[in-house]
């Protein structure tokens, strides 16, 4: 399949509509990245002001979701998009959904920060949290970057990272359970951390979904619910 472009339609208006949807998706992606960053920092520093900011940002994310959905619905109704244009619209619609869910998870992380603050404690000592947080933020960034550059290889790399994050998540949960058994006084704090970890892991899953949408857009292959080695093999055949 040759390199995709979205600016060569006979209808300049159609070009503008697709570009508008693409631009707004990238803006929404940027906003969600920022929200995750604020939420994560609020958790690590138990900063309720930052947490409140992250929760407030969710409203802006939701507004962008509605706006982009409206744009894609209009394009579907008016333009009957086909082939790469159709895949683009489908991918945008799915990615918008994933970004909105990432925003929800970021707000949940901020809520855990507030709860930790209320109980007068912090997530100190849980090194796994910082590590997984960094990885997940990187995944979100890479998946959006892959969308912007229509880069299926980068998208595949995000999918690999998600597998690694899932493994680390399992290990972190086991460590937390052990700590709770050893010292029941940590239970309340550990539960907050567990919920935050769970949200981070979910954000990673959504980044993986975005990556899958990118591969569908660029390569025309639906790679959902498939093993990574099979996907890699399938994509190699296309090149």
């Amino acid at each position, binding site marked *: 399949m*040759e390199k995709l472009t979205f600016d060569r339609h006979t209808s300049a208006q159609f070009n503008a509509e697709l570009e508008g949807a693409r631009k707004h998706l990238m803006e929404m992606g940027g906003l969600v990245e920022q929200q995750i960053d604020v939420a994560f920092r609020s958790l690590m520093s138990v900063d309720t002001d930052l947490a409140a900011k992250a929760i407030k940002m969710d409203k802006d994310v939701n507004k962008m979701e509605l706006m982009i959905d409206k744009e894609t619905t209009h394009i579907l109704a008016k333009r009957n998009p*086909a*082939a790469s244009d159709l895949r683009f619209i489908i991918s945008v619609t799915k990615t918008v959904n994933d970004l909105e869910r990432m925003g929800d998870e970021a707000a949940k992380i901020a809520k855990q920060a507030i709860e930790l603050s209320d109980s007068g404690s912090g997530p100190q000592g849980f090194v796994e949290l910082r590590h997984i947080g960094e990885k997940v933020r990187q995944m979100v960034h890479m998946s959006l970057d892959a969308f912007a550059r229509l880069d299926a290889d980068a998208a595949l790399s995000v999918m690999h990272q998600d597998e690694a994050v899932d493994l680390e998540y399992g290990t972190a949960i086991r460590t937390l359970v052990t700590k709770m058994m050893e010292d029941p006084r940590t239970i309340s704090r550990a539960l907050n951390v567990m919920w935050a970890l769970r949200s981070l892991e979910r954000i990673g899953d959504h980044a993986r979904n975005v990556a899958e949408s990118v591969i569908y857009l660029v390569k025309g292959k639906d790679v959902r619910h498939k093993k990574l080695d099979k996907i890699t093999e399938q994509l190699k055949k296309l090149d």
Partner: protein
Amino acid sequence: MVKNKMSSIEQTFEGWKSTVGEPLLAQQDTRISTRNVDVFYADKQAIFGVDLDIGKNEVLAMIGPSGCGKSTFLRTLNRMNDTIDTCKVQGDILLDGENIYNKGMDVVSLRARVGIVFQKPNPFPKSIYDNVAYGPRIHGLVSRRAEMDELVETALRKASIWDEVKDRLDQPATGLSGGQQQRLCIARTIAVSPEVILMDEPCSALDPIATARIEELIDELSNNYTIAIVTHSMQQAARVSQRTAYFHLGRLIEVGTTDKIFTAPDHRLTEDYITGRFG
């Protein structure tokens, strides 16, 4: 300027070797086979080496920009091009394994086996009944009036127009609406029990409701007939066909399942055409 344009067209086909996708089918599934078909109008070549199979009970859509050769190709399938003196067809076109350009081939019976429906409905200036009865009469398919009545009714029913015309069979066909006339023409084609129905932009003169009825009819007819349809409406191709063939400047560029062609075509030219991009 014109010269530059020509050279860019030539560049498009620099290195073009063969059709992308799956133009050929298993022999037992095939109704029509074309191999290395070239068509010339005088010394101008309009079709270049087309290899394509059309399956039994399949609707194949042929799409492409004006002048790409899709109608020319369609018309080679029942030797409609014979009526053009300067037109020359080379290569093999097999209907159920038999070359239709063989010397011994009876063109009149060929056109009964491979019927055609044109862009503009063209009923004969006769009654509705006689329009349908005309083919069976000249082919001597039935001798008794009662049998003919039954055949006319069956054909009109299959073309989904019986209920609208059953009370006025003796009235002139030209009094019907455009959509009704087109369905009458389809009934006329069906009346001689064809194996294949060719359709050359059958809905381009019809409104959306009449178009929807014809498309519904195509779907029903595909249970019993092989249908090859040329259309300028990509949405129509997407709606009615199981396979789609894309023609460009006389070449068959890509053939694939309609799902594949409209979601992820392999050739850049196909992609550009169906997404409305300029070359």
